[in-house]
Every structure is written in C-alpha cells, then in structure tokens.
C-alpha cells in the first residue's frame, strides 16, 4: 500500500437531496441522539470548537477540531478514523458539510472529504460505500423517521 493518496481520492464529494429543513439536517449531523441512528451507531456531538464521536461501547471513534460552525448552513471539522488502529495512524483529514435549501422543502446536502493526501487507507475506506451508506441512511431516517436497517 502506498503512503500517499492518489490525487483523485484526496478530495471526495458526495451530494444528496433530502426532504427536511436545514435545521432538521443540522441537528441530525451534530447531535448524538440522531447520529446514533444512521452513522454506524456512532454518537457524534459537535460544538463550535469540538467534534467528538463515540462508538456504541463508548470507545472514542473521533476527536477533532471544528473549523467552521455556522448553523444551519456549514460545518467543517477534522477527521481521524480512530475506530481502526491502522487508519488512526494516518494524518488528519477534513470533512465539510454544506446545507442548501432547494425547492419544495428539500435541502441539498454536500459532503466534501478532503485533505486526504496523507491518509490513503482512510481515503479508500470512506470512499463510495462509506459515505454513501451514511448519507442514504441519513436520508431514510429524516424522510421516514426510521433507521435504514431497523
């Protein structure tokens, strides 16, 4: 495995349309009672200066700084995959959440995972199914009130 990420994987963009208000989306991204229901069971708490993710067994899955905290529009925080020892060794990357109201009560949510140059394994791990699974579960939760597989 190489130690640098191929350029095209160093910045990843995912976009999804969700029938919800910007405020509902913001809460779903920043409050543990929501994230536990779509983000692999992780209880994520985001405050203006800290991002924390706890696994179901209280293990620390994420612990990073917050760069932008602009409810209910934009959130930028650090990312380190602490749930996996190998991934945890890699350098910190960055996740940006952008919420834009579209029409008919629908919001466009864009997730950009970048600064992955020094985290090739993380880049592979979150690629495709990783973020896609999280975002489609988030959509199902907000639009039906139900977790995807529960």
């Amino acid at each position, binding site marked *: 495995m190489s130690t640098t990420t191929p350029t*095209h994987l160093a*910045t990843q*963009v995912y*976009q*999804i*349309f969700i029938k919800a208000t910007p405020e509902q989306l913001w809460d779903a991204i920043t409050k543990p009672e929501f994230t536990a229901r779509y983000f692999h069971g992780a209880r994520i708490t985001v405050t203006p200066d800290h991002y924390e993710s706890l696994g179901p067994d209280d293990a620390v899955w994420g612990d990073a700084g917050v760069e932008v905290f602009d409810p209910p529009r934009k959130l930028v925080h650090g990312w380190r995959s602490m749930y996996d020892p190998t991934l945890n060794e890699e350098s910190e990357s960055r996740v940006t959440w952008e919420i834009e109201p*579209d029409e*008919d009560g629908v919001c466009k949510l864009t997730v950009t995972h970048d600064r992955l140059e020094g985290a090739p394994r993380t880049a592979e791990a979150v690629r495709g199914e990783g973020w896609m*699974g999280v975002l489609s579960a988030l959509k199902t939760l907000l639009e039906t009130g139900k977790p995807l597989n529960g």
Partner: protein
Amino acid sequence: MMSGMDDDEVFKALADPTRRHLLDRLFARDRRTLTELESELEMSRFGVMKHLRVLERAGLVVTRRSGREKLHYLNPVPIRLIHDRWIDKYTERQVSALADLKAELEENAS
C-alpha cells in the same frame, strides 16, 4: 429547475452510452476538467458539455471550482438510492426464499 429528488432524471441520464462512458471515466478517476474528459471522447467540446449538464442535473456529477479550473466529481449517491429503491426490493424475495429453504433443510436434518 432541478429538484434532485427525481429518479426520472437519473434513469434518463443513464440511458445514454456516452453518458455512461463519462461516468465510467469519472469512476476510474474523477476530479477532472472538461478538457481532460473531452480528450478521451470522439466528440465536440459542446457535445461533452451537453452530456455533463444532463449528468449534473441528475446529481451524478458535481462540479467544484479550484482556482480557475472547474473540476468534475462523480457523485455515486443517486445510483445507490436507485439501487436501494429498485434493486434491493426485487432481489430481497429471492434471498429470503433461499434463507427460508436453508432454515427448513437444516431443521429437517437435525
């Protein structure tokens, strides 16, 4: 205007070999400029732009500015949603029928 909620747009976007080819190119490596994408197709710049616009409207391609360049990213999420909505649903029954058969056979064996 785009609603982005529309499966029709995704199916329409996928119902064209050039656009599927563009998606495959972006799947192999995205974050590309129009010029890069155009260089791999026997098609005018205008033609490629037109196809990219359809893909963008369907949410399959997302563009981001980086300095003076406009970069094209593959957004696989709409395909995943189509999969969840249309593929899973119709294959689930077979899978559960097989699971039932397995349970029955194992019960009889014990």
